């Protein structure tokens, strides 16, 4: 019989919250580890959620990361409350960054975030509306 169980968790991420940066991703990783997920897949989810979490903290007005764990795939929904991305193609370009210097001093803002998220996912979908939101729909297959 097909396993139809689904686990859903949601983490709110605050703008500029560098103190707690990484906590959501860390919790997500711990949950998936407990569920016995393959370590390679675990790493891909961890990298994608961590980059997304940093993006919300650095670039947005705050948002959330939502994780849906299906038997055969992990769905990650990320959404923030703006300001939106003007040129998505440019934002997807490795090395392009709008991060200020204080972010670079923390070791981020190299313009690798979105390309790195995409690299970790089997399906990657980005939508953005200026002044409203940026939304990521990510899928990582479990095997």
């Amino acid at each position: 019989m097909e396993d139809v169980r689904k686990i859903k968790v949601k983490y709110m991420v605050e703008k500029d919250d560098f103190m707690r940066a990484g906590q959501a991703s860390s919790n997500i990783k711990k949950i998936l580890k407990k569920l016995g997920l393959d370590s390679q897949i675990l790493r891909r989810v961890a990298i994608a959620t961590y980059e997304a979490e940093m993006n919300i903290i650095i670039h947005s007005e705050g948002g959330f990361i939502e994780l849906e764990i299906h038997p055969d795939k992990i769905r990650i929904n990320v959404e923030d409350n703006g300001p939106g991305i003007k040129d998505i193609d440019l934002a997807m370009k490795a090395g392009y960054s709008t991060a200020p210097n204080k972010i670079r001093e923390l070791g981020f803002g190299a313009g690798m975030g979105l390309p790195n998220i995409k690299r970790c996912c089997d399906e990657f979908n980005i939508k953005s509306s200026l002044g409203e939101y940026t939304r990521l729909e990510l899928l990582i297959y479990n095997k």
Partner: protein
Amino acid sequence: MTLREIQELLDAEILCGWEFLDKKIESVFASDLMSDVLAFANEKTLLLTGLVNAHTIRTAEMLDISAIVFVRGKKPDEETLELAKENKMVIMSTKHIMYVSSGILYTNNLKGASLPKK
């Protein structure tokens, strides 16, 4: 190479994780840019960095990196070390600069981390 050998080669001070010094390391990634670490490093990799803050530990945690050497005598604060302890990491601090630390490890046959295929 074990972390104990690396500690000796770099004449490094161990800040936490004494109990894990027998762990084996296969490659090294040296960078101050966590974005690059996230993009390129893999597990069983030693991270060599001059960036001492909690984000270094978080980044390592996401990648299952279990050992970090801070260069140029840098040491993280207590809070950051606590996070490392929670994640069962080995944290060391060496007086050597990044270039020299890398050189020492490289000449002792530790390879650079290989870039991902995908």
